């Protein structure tokens, strides 16, 4: 039950009888009357459980966008005046979620709560609280009912701003643009007439001799290669590094990089497989031949959260092998954490590099360099020493990975997605997939 502001006002109105008959008994009697009226009103109030409440389904949205959640409330039995609160978890950003309703018998109404999520993942509605007032407006019955609902918030994919420029470069690799790239492993496409700007080295002299014009050979980049994205969701991916809005978790930045790479690779005609995991595989997806690769990838990434566990790279490598024996570009989206990598990843790397081309994309923390450079106080100097130590170990690990034939792309949160995309394009251009 609940009471309204009218009850204290009514109690205060007791000052009139008290002035007429100034005894404590008058006051007590008045309070008793008000209490009885309030209880009666609560008893007469409609039961919230008689309302029929349903929620319309919500689709997924990207982080940073808003949506609305619609509740339909119907009162089949009687007239109802009520206050309805549609409670969501705080990061769902539900605003104006309290609604006053007045329903006649059999009426229904639609309550609209706008949501502006501040976090990636599945954000849930917690319940609908109904406070139904009695006929006098003094008391109310209140009850919270679970009305399931959730909104899936996809990763923001901030890096899609880099997409046009990278697609442009991809087209330059392709046979459509005037500039050709000739490289080992690129596939012979066709012959056509020379136009100015073509590389003279690509002139096919034998054909030119047979025809009247100069003829050049064209190549097209390899197609139908496999790209396997492996997203590490272990404890090291939880760290927050400097970036937009005061810092992003490494995992989110790695997702951004993966999404950009997938968008470009799918446009380039490659087949993309996606794996995410830590101790065990959390998500596995084959995107070969799908049109909306980024959309589906975002769906898969939406509810991934880092867990407090080390990554078990042997099981992840097993999962990579399970996706197919064909040579592939395996992109490991994992922080370059010396401990985690030396303990778990290094033993399985030879197997991976034997079959596949392996790239490790790591989100670097610019704070490390800043700490190493700051040397004002004693605390700073010790911190700088610690940072130098960490940096040295990172360099060492990166060097070790490179000797094992792994390409290491290490960049801060903002620039990792374009850096990884560029690396992919370079591999593509030189036909190393």
């Amino acid at each position, binding site marked *: 039950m*609940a*009471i309204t502001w009218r*009850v*204290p006002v009514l*109690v*205060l109105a*007791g*000052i009139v009888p*008290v*002035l007429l008959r*100034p*005894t*404590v008994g008058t*006051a007590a009697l008045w*309070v008793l009357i*008000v209490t009885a009226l309030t209880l009666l009103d609560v008893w007469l109030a409609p039961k919230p459980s008689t309302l029929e409440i349903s929620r319309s389904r919500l689709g997924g949205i990207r982080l940073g966008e808003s949506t609305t959640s619609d509740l339909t409330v119907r009162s089949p039995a009687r007239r109802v005046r009520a206050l309805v609160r549609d*409670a969501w*978890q*705080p*990061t769902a950003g539900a605003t104006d979620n*309290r609604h006053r309703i007045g329903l006649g018998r059999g009426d229904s109404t639609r309550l609209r709560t706008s949501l502006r999520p501040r*976090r990636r993942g599945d954000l849930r509605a917690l*319940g609908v*609280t109904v*406070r139904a007032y009695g006929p006098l407006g003094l008391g109310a019955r*209140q009850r*919270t009912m679970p009305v399931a609902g959730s909104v899936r918030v996809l990763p923001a994919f901030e890096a899609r701003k880099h997409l046009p420029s990278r697609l442009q470069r991809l087209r330059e690799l392709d046979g459509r643009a005037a500039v050709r790239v000739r490289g080992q492993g690129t596939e012979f496409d066709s012959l056509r007439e020379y136009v100015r700007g073509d590389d003279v080295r690509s002139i096919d002299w034998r054909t030119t001799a047979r025809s009247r014009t100069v003829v050049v050979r064209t190549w097209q980049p390899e197609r139908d290669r496999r790209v396997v994205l492996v997203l590490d969701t272990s*404890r090291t991916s*939880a*760290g*927050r*590094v400097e970036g937009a809005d005061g*810092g992003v*978790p490494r*995992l989110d930045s790695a997702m951004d990089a993966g999404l950009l790479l997938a968008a470009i690779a799918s446009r380039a005609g490659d087949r993309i497989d996606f794996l995410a995991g830590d101790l065990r595989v959390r998500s596995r997806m084959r995107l070969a031949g799908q049109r909306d690769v980024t959309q589906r990838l975002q769906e898969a990434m939406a509810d991934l*959260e*880092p*867990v*407090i566990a080390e990554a078990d790279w042997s099981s992840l490598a097993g999962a990579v092998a399970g996706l197919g024996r064909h040579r592939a570009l395996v992109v490991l989206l994992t922080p370059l954490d010396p401990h985690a990598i030396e303990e778990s990843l290094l033993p399985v790397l030879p197997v991976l590099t034997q079959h596949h081309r392996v790239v490790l994309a790591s989100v670097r*923390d610019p*704070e*490390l360099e800043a*700490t*190493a*450079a700051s*040397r004002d*106080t*004693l*605390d700073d*100097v*010790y*911190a*700088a*020493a*610690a*940072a*130098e*130590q*960490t940096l*040295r170990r990172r360099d060492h690990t990166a060097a070790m990975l490179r000797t094992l034939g792994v390409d290491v792309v290490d960049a801060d949160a903002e620039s990792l997605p374009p850096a990884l995309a560029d690396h992919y394009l370079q591999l593509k251009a030189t036909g190393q997939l």
Partner: protein
Amino acid sequence: MTVSTGSTVSTSSTTTGGWFRRKRPVLIVALAFVVAVVLAYLAAPKGGESYAPFDPESPDPDGSRALAQVLEQHGVDVEVVRSSKQLEDTEIGSDTTVFVTGTDALGENTATRLRERTADAGDLVLAEPAPYVSTMLGIPYAISQTSETVEAGCDDPRWEGLSIRADAVTTYDAGSCFTHDDGAVLAPGDGLTVWGAPQVLTNEQIVRADNAAVGLRLLGATDRLVWYVPALEDLAPDEAHSPSSLLPRWITPALWLLLFTVVALAIARGRRLGPLAVEPLPVHVRAGETTRSLGRLYRRSGDRTHAGTTLRQAARTRLAQRLRLGRDATSEAVVGAVARSTGRPGLEVSALLTDAPLENDHDLITLANALAALEEEVRHP
């Protein structure tokens, strides 16, 4: 995101020094408390006893010990009575003046007994009685107050040519001496006298105008003076006059109503519309946090040499890269190349980059900054 903030570094030192260091805040607070208590004790007024205003034994500015002592010196037998029982035991004859101060503490019972006991007295003087005492004893009502000089201005030879002055003087609607604004300070009543200016008799104000003379003549007219200071303890339980008896009758029920209003308001506003919305909160840890903690560990263990070595090694690696010496360049090669590049003496560079000992923390800071400066010099010669 869903990662706890990591383990806190705990140091358990068993030495006494460590105990003091850990308990330092507690000790400081305890010490401050002791100092505050001692200061408060020292600053407190000496003598301890506190007196009511106009008390004949009080040396305070609002006491009347000066007057009592002067009266005794002039041969008046001053007896101070502090309870009803003591008053019963005191001999009161026609040569006795009874002076009552602190009349607030008189109740119906004690007032009646006072009247009975003083029936034979030479005079009964009440110092500025409280309104309800006036009602009980049937004596004149106070009508005004003044702080101006009041002239005697009556035929009584005792007061001829005298005037009084005090911060607050009350006049009554009877009497003819010390008149002011249609009232008189000295008001005769039914077998007693009301004196509206007890402040005239206090240690502080007795020196003003003719206050001293008036005081002596008022109380020194007879050989004996019984100075009665009524005590609250003498009152019968039902006699105490509480302020509530003076208030309108509707106040109490109104206050009760107000209380219930506040309670109802609290309930109305305090009832939450549904449970609190909870968030399965991910904890964001700054990635650089572990490095900073490592730095603090170094600091705590005071491992200067290790920190210095690390900084030097990092500087050598970067300098070697900068001067294109390759990854595996020896420190001697780096020292030589840096000396050539900067023009500094080889020994100085060597001391900086390899072997100058670190005696104290200051050396470490100096080294760190010197290394940074050297790198900067090589980068931008």
